[in-house]
């Protein structure tokens, strides 16, 4: 067992974990953060995407011990004061989810994408989401949602929408 200290969605945890434990299982089984899900075992589907120190990672490809000292943000930690993150809101408004299983990872990846490129064109969005699989939507409305979120998150678009960089570090 190895002890790790990790901040998840703004809460600090100290836990003994098996060295082989993947971050996603630490989140789900130890912390009860079941909003983050497992969709495959080969890091292809992206359903488990979270932010590690502000960067998107597939939490099935990160060991919990690698998150020692880090700040992790999950789908459960991006809404602020009862306000959805603009990407969450855009997914809802554009019907960008059906069964919703890929959605947490897709939203976390989209936030990361918009952090890197606040004004992506359609092709850049499609390529930026290439590592996240969805079987329900055909991606059509996911692309629309990310375009919509980019508009909402432009500086000055709306006073009460937080910028993605500020959110990526976590906090509740």
């Amino acid at each position, binding site marked *: 067992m190895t002890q790790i200290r990790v901040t998840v969605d703004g809460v600090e945890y100290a836990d003994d974990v*098996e060295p*082989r*434990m993947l971050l996603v*299982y630490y989140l*789900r089984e130890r912390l*009860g*953060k*079941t*909003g*983050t*899900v*497992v*969709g*495959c*075992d*080969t890091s*292809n*589907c992206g*359903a488990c995407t979270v932010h590690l120190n502000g960067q998107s990672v597939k939490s099935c490809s990160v060991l919990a011990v690698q998150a020692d000292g880090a700040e992790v943000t*999950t*789908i*459960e930690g991006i*809404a602020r004061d009862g306000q*959805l993150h603009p990407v*969450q809101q855009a*997914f*809802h*408004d554009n*019907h960008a*989810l*059906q*069964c*919703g*299983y*890929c*959605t*947490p990872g897709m*939203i976390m990846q989209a936030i990361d994408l918009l952090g890197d490129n606040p004004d992506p064109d*359609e092709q850049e*969005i*499609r*390529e930026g*989401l*290439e*590592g*996240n*699989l*969805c*079987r*329900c*939507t*055909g*991606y*059509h*409305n*996911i*692309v629309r949602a990310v375009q919509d979120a980019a508009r909402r998150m432009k500086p000055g678009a709306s006073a009460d929408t937080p910028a993605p960089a500020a959110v990526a570090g976590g906090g509740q």
Partner: protein
Amino acid sequence: MTTTAEPATPVSEIGRARTRKEDARLITGRTRWTDNITLNGMLHAAMVRSPVAHGRITSIDVSEAKKMPGVVAVFTGADLDSEQSGLPCAWPINAEATPPRHVSIAVDKVNFAGEIIAVVVARSAAEARDAVDAVEFDIEPLEPVIDLNDALTDRTVIHSELGTNKWVTFPFDSVAAGATSGPSADEVIAAAENDPDSVVVTRTWRQQRLIPAFMEPRSVVVDPTGEQLTVWSSTQIPHVLRTMLGVTLGLPEHKLRVIAPDVGGGFGGKLQVIPEEILTILVANKLRRPVKWTETRSESLVSGHHGRDQIQTVTIAAKKDGTFTALKFDFIADMGAYFGLFTPAVPVFGAFIGPAVYKFPAYKAVFTDVFTNKTPTDAYRGAGRPEATFAVERIVDELAAVLGRDPMDLRKQNWIKNTEFPYTNAGGLTYDSGNYEAATEKALELFDYEGLRREQEERRRNNDPVQLGIGISVFTEMCGLAPSRLLGALGAGAGGWEHAAIRMLPTGKVEVVTGSSAHGQGHETAWSQIVADKLGVPFEDVEVLHGDTQVSPKGMDTYGSRSLPVGGTAVVKCAEKVIEKAKKVAAHLLEADESDIDFAAGRFSVRGTDKGITIQEVVFATFLSHNFPEGVEPSLDSEYTFDPENFSFPHGTHLAAIEVDTETGKVHLRKYVCVDDIGSVVNPLIAEGQIHGGLAQGIAQALYEEANYDEQGTLVNGTFVDYTLPSAADLPSFITDRTETPATTNPLGVKGVGEAGTIASTPAIVNGVLDAIRHLGVEHVEMPCTAQRVWRAIQEAEQQGGAQ
């Protein structure tokens, strides 16, 4: 109590593009997937699976596994066989024979790679998986039966009790069925072959094997605590599962509660009673502890049922002027190693819709169901209809090429005109409504058909290395499964009705109970819209309950694009019953005769007066029951079970512009236009989303996906690394539109939408690929049309001298 205020102008909820109620929890991670469930003392099961496709189990040694840390128990087939019974097949098609026993855990013989041979139960999932590797076993390999034609030789017989690998040959003949009069398809085709004024085109091609690949891996939690056995399962069919568990395992149905909580997609892949459900129940009962099983993705791909997998021989006969005279299907369908719930019926389901939108005076379809040593097949989005639609839409294009006709003109010449509905097709189905002209006209315009044809000619003339093809698919399908009597006549083991209940709560809020168990479709939103309209209550005041047999005790669940036409209709009828009951109460409270009461927009009023009362007031008065009509039951709650009189028949016209790089074989889907007629629409946002997702899966069959087996019967692309689901970068945005010809067989006028995109798009894409390279002498490219296959087809055609 009496209100006289004018009601606010009602805004119709039905037809409104409401964003979904379901989203709130799904976008914030407040979800209830089965794998999220943790119970006190819960153990974890993991399955030991055979790596051998066909063989005899000669030994299993679990002693080392039992010593592994955290392991509570290990069970083999020998331990569980007396209790496991056989998995159910609800529609065997063949009344002459008994389906081979489909065991949940193999006892002495394995019939596909992935079949379970032992169950490990441990304190944690990781410990259970560790111990799986410690189970020692020997399987003596038998010759695997992989190829369908080889299977039919019976060189090696998989199920010795049957004595053959062929399960059944199911023939449909339009003359015998009374759907057409005059000569049979065989006679017409034979005559056409010797008739200089006729032409006969025959082609043989594959429907490759596909994997449904829902995003949420399957998961089962069984809790034997207390008097009831509670089963959570990531299933499309909690109600069917409950009944089947009663029928197969002999568990008392009233002691069983099945819950499908949030379910992450199904596409037919979760329309199944799975071995893992049975085994998790058996081990939980034995250990008297809650047990969870959650599959890995690799397990899912190798053991969850697959779809399609047919060799199709298709023949069309026509006059030289293009008039169709006969259609014939001869399909060999791969059942895999065992039957699931609908395995042998899935191919046959395409028989009736085979003639599609066309007027065929003669039609024959023969389906041969064959066992192989591969993962069982069963329903996958469309289930039988994509296969039949592909066959007919591809052969029409082949005929057009032979006759030198524009493929759209040839379709127009032969389709059912909008003035000819209702129309009984050569498959015996009566299409109640449709307007192929309107949908096609709209699609051609959105697509710029003429402009793209001009560009195609230009690229041909210039010998452009990138050639353009236009793919057409004019489709119809049968939805709204299904009239119970018809199912019975076809030998199905269940009816096709759906159930709804409405509970009027004292504060005016409404609970709607539906037997349609959603797993991404958006029933909570759509059903709320229906009820809000029918009862005149706010959308927000409606709560839709489903997916738990204790809350929703009756249902036939969700598949076959049935939810809205059947389940939605049940909700409508149920709401009408509530209003009928409430009307009596309102009449009493308003001191008027019931026949003078009108109901509109949530208000009962006395005709010709300004006297009225809201539905909420009637509900509260019923709750109090102080001042209540004599002899009337003090409740407005209602139930309704709706059995459809007919299927519904969505249709549409799909057009694909395909660029093929003739030097590399690379296929680029440049533009996709579809105009679907799904009848009236409750929520256009949801309906359009269903079309998008359907398109993606149909396009993926045409271009990307195939489950590949090697000659030993090993699934060689059993991970998401190499089973290539399309990503966002592999698909374009779609141009979708609708025409609206209401269905006449249900009060909503709806037809169903879940499978339309998948059924229509596959032939559109392949027709487009062919249209781009046909002038090079290519007649067919097998699916998926990968760059390698397309390049090879071009090379082979060139070697054979190119176009004739």
